Each structure stands twice: as C-alpha cells, then as structure tokens.
C-alpha cells in the first residue's frame, strides 16, 4: 500500500530554509510573501487495508520521520 507522509515545520516555528528561498524568490520579482520548506516521504507499507496502513505510517511519522517539537505531519494513503 502506497502512503505519503508530508512533514512540515510546525506553525510559528522559524524556518530559515524557507525564508532563504523566499528572499531569493523576492529577488527574482515573484510576489512570494511566505515560504515554508518541508519533506515528502513516499512509503510502500505492507498492510491489509488503508486503515492499518495509515496507522503504521502514523507511528513511523511520529517516531522517526518527524520531530514533534518542531514538525507536524500529514498522511495520505493511496492505492
């Protein structure tokens, strides 16, 4: 089962990487008011159904893929 985990900086946490990208975009003349940089993990999880795939991916996201002090995550379960 394909699962995508999106990891983003938590709201309110300074994201220096996103800010550096925003400055470069402004330099090119783009009206980018804010940029936040995150990560995408595409996993293939061995699971019987979408619900258990989501549960396993959630545990992985919580324990490994994100640091809850500074990051939040979302899970999308595909086919």
């Amino acid at each position: 089962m394909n699962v995508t985990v999106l990891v983003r900086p938590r709201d309110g946490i300074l994201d220096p990487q996103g800010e550096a990208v925003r400055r470069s975009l402004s330099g090119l003349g783009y009206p980018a008011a804010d940029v936040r940089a995150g990560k995408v993990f595409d996993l293939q999880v061995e699971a019987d159904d979408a619900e258990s795939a989501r549960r396993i991916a959630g545990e992985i996201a919580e324990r490994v893929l994100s640091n809850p002090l500074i990051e939040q995550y979302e899970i999308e379960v595909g086919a």
Partner: protein
Amino acid sequence: MRVGVVTYPGACDDRDAMHAVALLGAEPVRLWHADPDLGGVDAVIIPGGFSYGDYLRPGALAALSPVMRGVRAHAAAGRPVLGICNGFQVLTEAGLVPGVLRPNASLKFRCHDVALTVERESPWLPGCAPGDELSIPMKHHDGCWFADQAQLAELEAAGQVLLRYRENPNGSVGSVACVCNEAGNVAALMPHPEHAVEQLIGSTDGRILLQGLLDLAESPLAAHSSV
C-alpha cells in the same frame, strides 16, 4: 576510569575525544554504533560528526542505532553521558536531553572559538562559578537549540541550563549553549570541549567539562549538593 566514545558512520571527532580523555588520565574505549554492549564503561561521550550523513534530521538515525540501547541503560542507571555537537543532536533526538537542534538561523556553517558564560555551579563545570567565561571552539551548521517558551522556563527553573553563548552564534533560544537532563547526569553542548584541551591550540577550557564527566563517573550524582 574507562570512558566509552561512540563511533558512528560519519563520526569525525571520536578520535579527538579519545585523545582528550587520555590526556585527562582516563582510559578511552571505542564503542561501535551497531553494538548495544558498552563493555561496562564508567562514562560515555557521544562525539561530533555527521552520523548517517545527517540524513532525515541531524542525529535522528543515530538515535535509533543499537548502541543507544546501551547508552539509555547507562544513563538510566545515573551514570554520566556527555554529548558534543552531533552528540548533542543525537541525545535530543533520543530524548535524553531536552530540546532539539535546528539549522543555524543564519543558515551558515559557523566555525570559530565561542565565548560561553557559566550559568550556574554544576558538577559538569568543576571549579567554575556563575558568570565565569569559557572559550571553546564550535563548528556546526545545525546548532540552533530550540525549546518552546514554556519548556525553556521549566528548564531554567530546574537549573538545567549550564552554559550560555555570550554572543548568540546560531539563533539558539535563550542563547542556551549547554543543557542537562532533569537528573543532571546527561549533558550536551554544540561547542567542542575535546578541541580545547591543550594550550598549544589556544584554550584548555574544554578540560573543565571533560573533568566534570570523569568526576561524575567517579562519584554518584547524589553526592553533589549543587544539583
């Protein structure tokens, strides 16, 4: 006195740490990341470097490695652990010291001596008084220590902030440079005490923290009234 120094794939300061331990008269013991057995060492150093290529988050994968099972048990028994640079990142990711290390606010790799102010008396800082200044080199890209305001206030109140940067080089909240766990037997910092042990290269202030590690291994933490 035997001091274990953990070698991870990508560690680069393990040999300097072992050299510094030997200079202070203790026996350095190399520990391997894949082996959870610490061989009965009295103290542990998690050294600097770029474990697992800093993949995912600095220290995150090292924190999951087998040796950390041994380090957790060692720490849980009240024995001392010092994390340096990448070792600080590993210990935060392992939940053994509070907070997390993020990219420097400047996004620049900073490599220079840094002035640190002693925040409080601590067995980690033998002979130091609050307000004393230490000079120890730092070299990192991801040394911006973060905790939210509530957690920072708790740590300050509990006396877990040991050193602050005199001039904040990386955006760490509260200019915090060195923190310890609640029990006081696990401490960590981004600057490198093991690179400041010989006058020839500028400073011997790093010996203070390393001596603190040896002192804590020698006598149980409960014997120290300042914690």
